[in-house]
């Protein structure tokens, strides 16, 4: 019996080791699989949340007056929260940035009206010579001709195309997107425009006064008359629509899912809701 002493212990140890290895393998495999399943579930939930919240917002825009947010009212109703100046608000756990497109300037589409673009480039930090050089590239683009002398004639059809042409970084292009639009805006909503767009539209100290009045929520036709000495024309408005850029962001934990689309909303038309543009947004962290 003496030589067999300790064998049982060895057997138990071997068995424990084998079981331990099996358990570790199972545990690692389970953790990896559940992690992947959880990631897919989170993605699906975020997507659903984003889609639902965007649909609720679009339904609100189709059926409710486009007034400003009303503090103290029912916060379950999106029309009591929304704003159209690109500042964020949260509804149903989704963060929205809604920008009235008429608060943007039309991207110059012909060669003789590039002054707003030049002003924007200067405001973004380019010297006036650099800005002029860049706008010259766009002028050449608009007026380029074929060897036969025939005008090639092609407008800018996407802001990415403009970025490539002017040699802008993604961040600079995103800044330009905040000022200009390819949507055919005919009126400028002075209340929803970004401060940069206001400064380009009203150069000099006038922009400061306009922004000051706007901050006090006193900007109306009378205020503009007091500031400029002229009545507002039909191209300056104080109400939003019909196109809205909707940027939505649904977050779960550290991960966020974003969407960006531009919708044209004309409730009394045959096609009351039209998708104008959809694109992948530059992540907020990258932009800020």
């Amino acid at each position, binding site marked *: 019996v003496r030589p067999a002493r300790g064998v049982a212990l060895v057997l138990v140890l071997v068995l424990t080791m084998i079981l331990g290895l099996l358990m570790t393998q199972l545990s690692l495999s389970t953790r990896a699989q559940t992690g992947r399943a959880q990631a897919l579930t989170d993605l699906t939930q975020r997507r659903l949340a984003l889609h639902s919240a965007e649909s609720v917002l679009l339904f609100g825009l189709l059926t409710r007056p486009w007034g400003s947010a009303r503090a103290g009212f029912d916060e379950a109703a999106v029309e009591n929260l929304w704003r159209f100046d690109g500042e964020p608000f949260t509804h149903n756990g989704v963060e929205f940035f809604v920008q009235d497109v008429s608060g943007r300037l039309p991207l110059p589409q012909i060669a003789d009206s590039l002054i707003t673009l030049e002003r924007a480039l200067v405001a973004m930090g380019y010297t006036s010579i650099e800005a002029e050089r860049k706008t010259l590239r766009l002028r050449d683009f608009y007026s380029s001709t074929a060897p036969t002398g025939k005008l090639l004639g092609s407008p800018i059809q996407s802001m990415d195309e403009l970025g490539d042409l002017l040699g802008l970084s993604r961040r600079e292009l995103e800044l330009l997107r905040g000022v200009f639009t390819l949507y055919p805006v005919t009126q400028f909503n002075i209340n929803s425009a970004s401060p940069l767009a206001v400064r380009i539209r009203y150069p000099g100290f006038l922009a400061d006064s306009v922004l000051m009045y706007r901050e006090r929520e006193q900007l109306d036709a009378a205020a503009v008359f007091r500031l400029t000495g002229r009545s507002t024309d039909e191209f300056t408005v104080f109400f939003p629509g019909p196109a809205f850029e909707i940027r939505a962001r649904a977050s779960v934990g550290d991960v966020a899912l974003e969407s960006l689309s531009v919708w044209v909303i004309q409730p009394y038309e045959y096609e009351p809701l039209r998708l104008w543009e959809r*694109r*992948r947004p530059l992540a907020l962290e990258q932009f800020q």
Partner: protein
Amino acid sequence: VELLISVAVLGMVIGLASYAFSLFSGSWSVVRLSTDAQINSAQRLDLVRHALENSIPWGVRDSRDNIGFYFLGREEGLTLVTSTPVFSDDSHAVVRVFREMEGANRWRLVYEEAPLRSTRLTRADQQLDFRHRMIVMGGLASLRFRYFGWASLQASVEEGVPGAPPPRPQWFGDFDGLVRQISPQRIGLTLGGAEVVIEIPERVSTVVERLRVVE
């Protein structure tokens, strides 16, 4: 002797347990590989869906300088311009999404991409370099495309004949943006038994007007 028997029994138990575990993990691996393949396929399809959703109605001219849209849709596939291509992260691109035969009565969905980083797309007959290709999914019993939109630019603006129903957007089996001078509003993609409807941007009148302005 007892020790020998106990070691033998223990060995058998461990052997049987290992065999059972290997059988279980083997069948689990098959399921897992199949699931992984499905997930990868779904992710590729998601990328293609994004590329289609983020399409740009791109105005071009044909060989006779007529204005139209760079959109060609057939039952077997489509070609369009997108702002969110799968491979080119920093530029828009022309993409082709179409079906290919894969054995008998089976189809595969194929995606091809031609970046427009240094190419100015102005003509419908321009030669493009489709340098990226991806098989999105395979083994599909049915795979076809259809398109929803106005029959033509003219139909989208006309009032209609008195007494007759006014023209309305409808589904078409093919959609040539050059001929119709308009781009569709939705793409229907039948994959196996289900149809995915993708809403795409429309900016027809603006593009046509701008192209005419620069003429």
